[in-house]
């Protein structure tokens, strides 16, 4: 029978986390947009909406604990609730990093244009795509896709190193651009962290599907 009491609650939980995922994706994407397009109003919006994301996290926490306490989920249902409970704070932290990017945008946008952000948009795009794929892989319980995304994190790490070096050179060559460049360094760091968090989400997707913890292991 597919209409167990717990099914209704699991469906609500699933809806909520997908909403949270969408909101987080949007926050990252718009935060970068506010930087690249120098749109401070957009940045302010992102910061405002972070409060909504925090609320969603609290609701999901409450519901997942309630399901565990009252419904005694087992096997797949259990792994699902645990995955949701662990992915939710990760998404909230990704959103926080998006907020920090928006903060940085507010400052950078006032400074003169530092460079045409060649690698930035690519780094940002990779991160946003990875996040979207990770959320799809969660919905579809796609362990293979999750493993591929974990591999892609290496690309972000490489981009980060390149951007870091370029910005350092820039600060040396053009001391007037130091403030802007320093803030951009932080933005790059935030993007790199977002990549790491997406990797964590993918490890949890694999747990959900295969009941195996691949975190902290060199073999995937």
């Amino acid at each position, binding site marked *: 029978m597919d209409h167990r009491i717990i099914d209704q609650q699991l469906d609500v939980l699933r809806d909520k986390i997908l909403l949270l995922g969408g909101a987080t994706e949007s926050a990252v994407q718009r935060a970068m947009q506010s930087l690249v397009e120098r749109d401070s109003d957009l940045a302010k919006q992102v910061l405002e909406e972070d409060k909504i994301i925090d609320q969603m996290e609290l609701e999901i926490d409450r519901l997942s604990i309630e399901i565990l306490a009252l419904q005694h989920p*087992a096997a797949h*249902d259990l792994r699902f609730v645990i995955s949701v409970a662990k992915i939710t704070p990760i998404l909230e932290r990704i959103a926080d990093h998006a907020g920090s990017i928006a903060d940085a945008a507010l400052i950078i946008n006032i400074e003169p244009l530092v460079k045409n952000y060649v690698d930035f948009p690519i780094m940002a795009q990779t991160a946003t795509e990875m996040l979207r794929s990770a959320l799809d892989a969660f919905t579809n319980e796609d362990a293979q896709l999750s493993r591929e995304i974990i591999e892609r994190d290496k690309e972000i790490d490489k981009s980060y190193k390149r951007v870091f070096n370029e910005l350092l050179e820039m600060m040396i060559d053009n001391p007037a651009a130091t403030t802007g460049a320093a803030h951009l360094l932080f933005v790059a760091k935030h993007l790199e962290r977002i990549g790491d968090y997406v990797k964590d989400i993918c490890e949890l997707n694999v747990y959900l599907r295969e*009941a195996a913890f691949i975190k902290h292991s060199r073999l995937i």
Partner: protein
Amino acid sequence: MDNKISVSNLNFFYGKAQALYDIALDIPEREVVAFIGPSGCGKSTFLRTLNRMNDTIPIARVDGNVIIDGENIYASGTDVVALRRKVGMVFQKSNPFPKSIFENVAYGIRINGIHSSKQDLNDRVEKALRDAALWNEVKDRLNTSAFGLSGGQQQRLCIARALAVQPEVILMDEPASALDPIATQKIEELVVELKRDYTIVIVTHNMHQASRVSDRTAFFMLGKLIEYNKTEKMFQNPDQKMTEDYITGRFG
């Protein structure tokens, strides 16, 4: 750890109707194994083949091997009385004898001639009652009728009675199903304590009880053994879909 009980090719018939199909499993020493499954799946019937209690049913027929400590208990010439001393049983509804608390526990000791003196008998009765976590509640009224005890206490008395004959294996057929939650908890704690010294097999219709107390779980459906695994695997990531459906409540 050696296997205390090893079952293979076990088929069971009530007259012409087959109730168990080709069951095979091994029960290691000093562990708790739980048998779960929907009503009528054969778990109690299977439990009762382990101490030949099904012999009391005239149309019952067993075909296959149940090897305990290296000997097949269905071989002709098996001493069934000695088997039942070694493999004790506690039943779903407690069934104390209409005798005093002391005499209930002493019965098994007396008929098996285990004790060496009156003092020895008293000591053994006390030990059994202590092991069943009942001594403190009854020590001042050993000569009163067993029926004066509450349901949970009567069940612990039945456990003490079984322990008094010094079995090696204890079979429990839904021992807590007639009890309230607190009495149930006491029985469960007792099971976990007892497994230090005894091999325990417990049939339960309550999956959570199985997940709380057992080391391994066997899932039966319609007379067949569907899955037998360590409990932590069974409840987090079972191998068979049917098992998963059962433990997540997907069947009516």
